[in-house]
């Protein structure tokens, strides 16, 4: 898989390193504000809470479960992603945040990609250090 990937490779920053370290281990990492009256779940990672401004936030391993929030099926894939059309999806995690992703182990058609269907995270290694969180139909 890693040898096949020709697309852009994320470069972690100090704030997002925990996310990418988790992805490499097969864990989806999020953050939560430590303030009792906030409890906001934060993604992408940063070292403070954009809801209340607190600098006290903690990393945690998310459930990896969510639902298909929206998508397009890209019929003009960029180099390295074609030639077949593929879905660019938005998944809403059970913990609240949404993230861009691809849906794998699923036909890339409007009939198979049903909004709100439950999905679960599945990590795709693209380099020795970076694994991309993708999602597949839950229980599939």
């Amino acid at each position, binding site marked *: 898989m890693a040898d096949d990937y020709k*697309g*852009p*490779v*994320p*470069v*972690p*920053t*100090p*704030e*997002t390193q925990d996310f*990418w370290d988790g992805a490499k281990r097969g864990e989806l990492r999020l953050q939560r504000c430590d303030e009792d009256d906030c409890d906001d779940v934060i993604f*992408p990672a*940063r*070292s*403070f*809470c*954009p*809801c*209340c*401004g607190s*600098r006290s936030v903690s990393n945690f391993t998310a459930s990896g479960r969510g639902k298909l*929030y*929206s*998508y*397009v*099926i*890209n*019929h*003009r*894939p*960029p180099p390295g*992603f074609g030639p077949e*059309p*593929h879905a*660019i999806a*938005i998944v809403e995690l059970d913990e609240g945040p*949404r*993230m*861009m*992703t*691809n849906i794998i182990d699923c036909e890339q058609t*409007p009939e198979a990609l049903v*909004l*709100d269907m439950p999905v679960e995270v599945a990590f795709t290694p*693209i380099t020795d250090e970076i694994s*991309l969180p993708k999602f597949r139909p839950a229980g599939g």
Partner: protein
Amino acid sequence: MEPRSVAIVGAAETTELGRIPGLSQIQLHADAALNAMADCGLKPSDIDGVATAGEAPAGIAHYLGITPTWVDGTSVGGCSFMLHVRHAAAAINEGLCEVALVTHGESGRSRVGRGGFAGAPASLAGQYEAPYGLSGPPSMFTLGVLRYMKETGMTHEQLASVSVVQREWAALNPRSTFKDPITVDDVLNSRMIAYPFRLLQCCLVTDGGGALILVSKERARDFPTKPVYILGTGESVETPMISQMEDMTTSRAFRVAGSRAFEEAGITHDDVDHVMIYDAFAHLPIYGLEDLGFVGRGEAGAFIEARNTAPGGPLPVNTNGGGLSYMHSGMYGMYALQESVRQMRGTAPAQVPDAKISVCHGVGGMFMASGTIIMTNE
């Protein structure tokens, strides 16, 4: 500006200076900003104006959790922040915002997360969007539309009617790129680009330009042209990452900019004779009509399908043919402004009879930013 009319109340540097390899460039902005807020006892939600250089103001605002009504990304090198202070003072005096934050952060030595333009591998978009097989705006700007359709019941045919109606306007405009009539079937049978969007629901790619000249109301009397007055203005930004919009079926930046402009103009929607809504893709007029308050949630598709925005309809929208049929050079907002000016001067090819108030609404990036200008000829 009036002397002593604006003051600096919070000021701080980053917690550390020197070598800071543990913080990315955007986090240096945030660290300094949080320290300045702590200096004067404010939270991000207390701030409604953002100016910055080196990073995009939308990136800083979203990172910090700020919903601005004024942004300034003037980037003229090391003195940018002096200009920001001056612009902020003017903005505060003018009531565009109440609490302006000017930020700087630069990983000049450690070079961590530097080059924060969208798509740079260490930017947030580079980490969390770029690896998923994107092909630019057609595969991204459109991402919320299936969600919108599920929540509101808008049909593919209604979305297609946006392109059909705008082609009717374009047919009245000799300078339009495309003038031949099209049907809903034509739209729905055109080449698939990024489901559910087909070729005729995506903007043109053309060359062009435009310019505007503004003077004081007093000076305007000295010119031979009919003055077009600025009646109301609004602006905001949300996020440079479309995947991180609060709600992908409505634009927060549209709502903030639009409501500001109407409030400033002191008008209601019934007062509006003509509307321009930047249409890079066919859903933009749908979102725009709803987020600006011309119709209710989920009503815009049926509203356009029923020819309310078409030639002869009660609310003419995108009367030059829009980005879908007139032209789209990449930063189309200038052309929307030009058409509003023509309508207010009474010189538009598809002139709306007796039009007195025009609402011109623009989008920046992919729902990243928004600006609304309301013009009048009275």
